[in-house]
């Protein structure tokens, strides 16, 4: 596993959570990160919308809009059709 793709988030309880960033996309003016849980406890990807907080931090919010989620995921699938096995 290449560490360079790992990003560490801080959850609401101040616990670090590691994700592996698989892709970053711009969609409708927002930036989305397509992530994999770094501990591989799931084979699903998580799509986070990136929101600016301050000069040092961004907030990563799981996209709640299913339409956007699907659009980003479809794009991710196209872009990475040779990189992943999509089941």
């Amino acid at each position: 596993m290449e560490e360079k793709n790992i990003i560490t988030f801080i959850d609401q309880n101040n616990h670090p959570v590691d994700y592996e960033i698989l892709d970053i996309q711009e969609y409708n003016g927002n930036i989305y990160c397509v992530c994999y849980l770094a501990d591989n406890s799931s084979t699903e990807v998580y799509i986070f919308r990136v929101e600016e907080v301050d000069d040092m931090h961004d907030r990563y919010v799981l996209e709640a809009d299913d339409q956007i989620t699907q659009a980003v995921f479809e794009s991710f699938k196209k872009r990475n059709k040779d990189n992943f096995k999509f089941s």
Partner: protein
Amino acid sequence: MNGNGRDKMDKRIVALGDGTYGVEVYRGLNAPGLDFYEQAKKDLGIDLKDNPNYCLCSDGVEDDYGISESIYEEIIVYRIINLSDIITRVDEPLVMPEPIASEEMEEETKGKNQDMLDKLWGNAAKRREYKDRYERFISHLVERDGYSVIEDYPEKAQDEAFLQLTEFSYRLERLSRAQNGDHSKYLEAIRLYRCTGNMPKDENGKEYTESALIDLLMRQDEEYIATNNYAYNQHQTTHQNLKTLGKHGEKGAYYPLREIVEENEKTGRKKFNAKALALDVVSVPMNAFVFLLNHTKKPIYSFVGTAVVAPIQDLIFRSKQSAASVYKSLATHRYQARKDIFEQLMDMALVIENIEREKKGEPPLNPNTFGYALKKAFVPRFQALSRAKEGNIIIASAKAIEIEESAKDHERAKKQQQTLGIALVARKKELMDALTELDLVWQTEKDPSKRQHIEYIQEQIRKKLKDVDLCIQANNDQPVPGVVQTDPISLSIHEEANRSNITRVVSGVATAARVGAISYLGPKISKWIQEQVGETTIKLPDKVVEERHVIPEKVEVKRSALENLSIGEAYDKSDKVIDYYAHGAGSQVAAPTRPYFRGVDFVWEGKEYSGVCLDNWGNYQYATMHLGRNPESSDKLFDVLAHVYSETTHQPMTGKDIIDQIVNSSDPETAAKKFSEGVRFWIDYDGDTSKVAEGWVEAKDMLVDFVTKTSEHVEIVKKVIEGDTVMIPLLQCRKVVDPRILSAVIALSGGEFVDLYDLLRRTRSKTEMQKQGLVGRVLKPFEKATDKPLQQRQTDNVYGFTGTRRGDYDSSYNEEDFTPDTPHKTR
């Protein structure tokens, strides 16, 4: 012997006085009608007239090197033996003749190219052959007399050649012997260094001591063995992979070479346990397997590609599909390699773009932006797919150059070895002749003290002779440097591809409706991306051209000459030059416009060169020089000039003299006046070489219109032809780690692989680069380019440099354009 010389004679020795002796080499008759000298010259091939190495005697009586006038006189010719001369001669270093040049490497190169292509495209038959040969080779790794060696077996030579392990075998044995206290192989190498006067020196320029040199060579051997043995490399890869298994994985049975050595030192076992090294490859996957059985509670597939790396997965599941090895490069590995290339291309494109912008006076693009980082993170991945064919060709082309170079290096080394062998044998003969002569002298000499002295000299010669014998033996034993491994995809890329997520499964997307709202605080995504991709291979300064001393000069050229002019051609074809600028002591000095005035300024290898030539003036050329910021630096020009004379006094001038006349002016105006009015000097100009000063000729030759590379830097001389003007070359230095970037640029922009070989060869040898013209070999493409995307892009290429247009590196891509990574059809 014909004529009046005698056919055979006993070698008679006579004492000639002054500590010299004479060995009789010839007898002839001096008589009316006979020309003794002519006959002797015919018989001996030596002109004896006034020859200080020979003494001519009449009837055994010395005749002061001349011939008496007596009739029918027999002349005896003695070759003079001078003991001190012999001593000097014996102590002289070995004179190495020039090695025989060899350029006939086509067949070997073809073979290596094919081998490379077999590896690139995964030739199954070759893969099986490799496996069989490797297993056979390693099965003959035995311990003999306490050291590891590949024992002889009938197919050993062929296996070594196929596996490219000849040098490996030699070094393994040499190192292994040394670790058991037998340093003889290293001593042989050192003896060769001494014999040829090539003892390596340390960083202070002092010759290494014997023990220090042995240590150094042993370290080099360790490194070589560790990096040139595929089995070991795989082993190392596996070790790295094991780390992904966490603490349990790292406890795996792993014995890297260095640890073996250290362990041996600790335990006192002085054995280089290469066999354990080879066998250990087996124990590693077993360890991984046991770990998985004991620790995983999840389906194993979820670990594959992340926690479980592909090679181990391969071994566990006996899969034949996911891991690459020699002769088994998968499409995904080629993809990885292409991605690597296109990443570097992006950097190069930015450099080119910024040069363009700078020329137009526009601010350079800043790579340290989120947009660029984002682009860099993803665009190469798309290009690796959409431009797959080009990428594959680039990879193969770049490797082909390495192969060709390596094959030539290999051949040169062989020739060098042969040449040394010839020189050593000649030396041996020389010493043996000296011994024979001294023996004759010793037999003649009656004086005991002189005989003792002769014996001493003989003893010294015998020692030398022994040394030479050992050198001959060592030279015969030395392996020539191995050729490069021909896998065009580097091991690191294989590793990366193996580790990459190609085997990972994405089962779907986690929706907020199902997993709930999640929100995290994290680092700025822009900074995070920059951290990932910021450490690029190319350092891009904010301002592309910071240290230019001279405003680009515009040289008018005739419209008919607006093709790919070299710098030299541009100068030769132009009939006037205007606006020569120079910086002196912080002030700008403008020379007046004058016809036939030519100027250039450029930096080469850290030195600033410049020269301005006026029209022919007899055998001389007028020239002036560029004034650097630091006047002291201006004398760099004189490094390439033969003689400089004052125009008025016709006396030699130094750089300082000239600088004083120009720079030490009180103000720029005065300086400019002096500059224009008559601070002139002569350049001693030899011949009529394209009517420029000698230094200028050299300087011109040093300019390359293209790209050159040192080990760390790429220097780009950019020449732009714009309308009717030619811009003076602009030199850039950018750090690039992979020479493939160069071939990539060329291949993408040039439309053909023209000069690829030549240009990359320039990266190897500055000297060669300086000597050779730009027109190099045409490297044949690996496939018949029926489609011509490259040529199309070239079209109206107006760039003297590479002709790369901005559009070539455009980040846009069309998913519909993705080209499947189809097998290459060149074989």
